[in-house]
């Protein structure tokens, strides 16, 4: 039985490194990342689970961090945008988004890239329809989506070639 009063301790793997936090019980993963750990790539777009800006990967699966109490990632693996490349180098998806102007205001970008990463890991050759379906929970108000889809297609090609 797990009972946590007033502050809750949670231990999990964040971008491959162990992390331990003591936070108020209903703290969301989003708040834990942004306000307690000061990793700001994950964005607060709505708080309703509707926009996808807060998307992170939990055990590789796209998850809305604004709706997930951090207590529930105890012992799990969390990946944020900060974790997909090291300083000075770019993941092929980051490269492709940059080259294809797939980010304008940039607010949806973290969620988009992580969702795309999860997609390409389970489906390295997605069709345009499969890309659109995978991104159906991520909203963008600036680009009209096409540059984002093209960036993902390009990254998929480059990742295939790289292997």
């Amino acid at each position: 039985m797990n009972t946590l009063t007033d502050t809750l301790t949670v231990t999990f793997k964040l971008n491959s490194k162990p992390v331990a936090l003591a936070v108020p019980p209903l703290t969301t993963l989003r708040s834990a990342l942004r306000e307690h750990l000061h990793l700001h790539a994950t964005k607060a777009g709505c708080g309703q689970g509707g926009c996808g800006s807060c998307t992170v990967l939990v055990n590789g699966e796209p998850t809305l961090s604004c709706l997930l109490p951090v207590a529930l990632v105890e012992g799990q693996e969390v990946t944020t945008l900060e974790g997909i490349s090291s300083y000075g180098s770019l993941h092929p998806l980051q490269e492709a988004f940059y080259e294809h102007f797939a980010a304008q205001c940039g607010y949806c970008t973290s969620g988009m890239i992580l969702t795309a990463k999860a997609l390409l890991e389970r489906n390295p050759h997605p069709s345009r329809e499969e890309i659109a379906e995978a991104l159906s929970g991520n909203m963008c108000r600036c680009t009209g989506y096409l540059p984002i889809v093209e960036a993902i297609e390009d990254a998929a090609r480059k990742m295939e070639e790289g292997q």
Partner: protein
Amino acid sequence: MTTTDFFIPCSVNEAVDLLSEHGEELVVMGGGTIMMYLVNEGRLFPRKVMSLRRSGMDEVRAVDGHVEIGAGVTIARIAQLDALSILAQAARILGGPAVRNMATIGGNLFAHAPYGDLGVPLLALDARIELRSKRGQRTIPLEQFFAGHPGGEYLAAELVTALHVPLPQGHGVYLKLGRRHANTPSVVAVAAQITLDDNNVCRAARIALGAASPRPMRAVRAEAALVGERLDDASITAAAEAAMSESDPATDALASAWYRRRMAGLYVRKALEQVAHARSGAQ
């Protein structure tokens, strides 16, 4: 202040005990996609919260001609249950991919219209719902559950533990009209499960509607318009008109009641035409 306790019970018995111990103060959370929305928007201030994520209600078992689905099974997993075709179809187009990873079938039953899509195919499949409390366990038809629960309850006396869904007979169709092709609540949703004999006469019909009333509903007059009749344009028209008359939709930001009522009729028609088409294709 605000939240002082966050419980993560490891078994159903533990969960039931917590419910009994803390009563009205304890807010129950399935996947969190409904409750956390309200917390984030500053409309709900739960003192004690219980997450059912680790309580072990996440199994799917085939038992004697029906499927038993734990209330904690995620929508993403439901989307793969092809034996319950219309339920899987509904799950595949509910919310977005990340929502489906998190939301549970049990939690979805508490959503207010125009959300709560899964109740629609579950009604059409004659699902029964298993409820547990300190006093014991009971299993009732899902319709009865909807009648007694107006939706959005977090302070429950009983825990929803499983859905019992018979394997479907005949042809099933699920259709959803939203404002987008994906990640949208329903303007209206229709599930139809129809059994036809060799002469194309309808032997059994279940038609359920979503967002056409405060809770998912059975369109019993539409069903009655079909049973005993051949599935043809006349009976389909009668069923569609009956569905329109028995629905009681709300006006909200998504659609007006007027429009929802018309779409209920149109989508019942489309669903039944698909059944007829599938049937004639098979013959």
